[in-house]
């Protein structure tokens, strides 16, 4: 399988402690553009739901007069999902609860440059 412009970024993100996978997703339809996932992670489901959540957050924040959403983090009992958008692409990370979300956030913010290319 050939490398995509996102391969290095995704691999670096997935190497973070507690990260189960990362992917680049189309915001409009939730389809995976590229991914780096551990075995057992339901990539298609995560991508679809993360895209839907991000889109909803972006539209809601805009409607509430709070500007454009940049970063969305969903925290649950047994894990978390983070999404950051640029243009029509999203960078999505799914992680365990023990993951350092501060570090993941910083890595994702750095990685958005790749989405803009």
């Amino acid at each position, binding site marked *: 399988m050939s490398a995509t412009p996102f391969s290095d970024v995704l691999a670096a993100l997935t190497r973070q402690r507690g990260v189960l996978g990362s992917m680049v997703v189309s915001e409009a339809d939730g389809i995976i553009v590229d991914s780096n996932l551990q075995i057992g992670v339901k990539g298609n489901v995560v991508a679809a739901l993360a895209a839907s959540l991000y889109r909803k957050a972006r539209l809601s*924040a805009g409607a509430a007069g709070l500007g454009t959403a940049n970063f969305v983090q969903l925290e649950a009992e047994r894990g978390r999902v983070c999404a950051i958008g640029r243009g029509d692409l999203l960078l999505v990370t799914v992680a365990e609860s023990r993951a350092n979300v501060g570090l993941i956030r910083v890595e994702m913010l750095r990685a958005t440059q790749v989405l803009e290319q």
Partner: protein
Amino acid sequence: MSDEIRRLSDELAREPASLVFLPLGEALRRQGQTDFALKVALRGLERHPHNADAHDLLARIAVDRGELERAFDEWDMVLRFAPRHAGARKGMGFVLFRQGKLEEAERYLAEAMEADGGDQSTIAALAHVRRALGRPISEMPPAPERPSDAGRPALPPLPEMPLQPRASGETRISGAHHRGSGEVRSSGEILRPAPSGGGLPEPPWLSQTLRNSAPPPAAPVPDVDPREREALARNPRALFADLIGDADQTALLLDAEGFVLAGAYVAGDGRDVAQEVGAELSGVSDEAQRAMRHLDLGDWQQIVVETEVATIALAPGPRAGLLLVAADGAMPLGMVRRFLDRAAARARSFVEGIA
């Protein structure tokens, strides 16, 4: 433009986030430039929506513009953020007096005197209202003597003061003048109803009330005490007021249907847009629930959305409700989460209290 206004304007231009808008708005108001004063106050409230002094300023501007109901509402907001604000109670007493609601005016003025027993203008106002009600002035506790009062009368002579018409067209009351250490002088006065359509002449105690209502800073309250709880039950908009303090942040508690249960979200123009914001953002939690069902990650606990201007954090509220806090984008994420935790604890105790 006076030198003082010019200086304050320059200072505000240099530091738009500062509280200089308060003295600037007040200076403009005193010069009669109420339109400019209003703009300055509203701009300041955009950045400091929970600042009691800012709402107090807006209330006094509203009085100058003849908008008594708005003034009352603003002073009501002041009391949410600074429950012991004597100036706000005095101002509300004035508005009620002008509306002919003497009983209520008396209550607010009595509370103002309780909060600041040394304020001579409040004593004069309360004496006036009690005379209008035909009540004995001796019900009032004597004002504490202050060194500055020595050698001069404690109160200026009370003027003949028009009243709003009550049940009858003309009201006769017995006048009284509180003279310092409890001595009361009575005289007969005829108070005529105010001419319809025209504004009421401003009694001296009112001018003093409006000019001198410099409130003491509100002390942060660590927890809800029973009196506050009772007040909150009357107006849940103030549920998070003491947690918010003067910071650029806000909190809302929504019920399972997305309706606002408590909290406020004041827009830049002074409107409370809590319902609109709550309705828009509550959809995000529905999306989160759906995602959690499919991903088998357990119940969702928190959603944080960072936008260009703000950080919004959502958490499940009591009884399938939703708690929403928003803070200025410059606030560190950790502080926003901490604020969310504290607001969640407050929301739980509030819902248990009303259940």
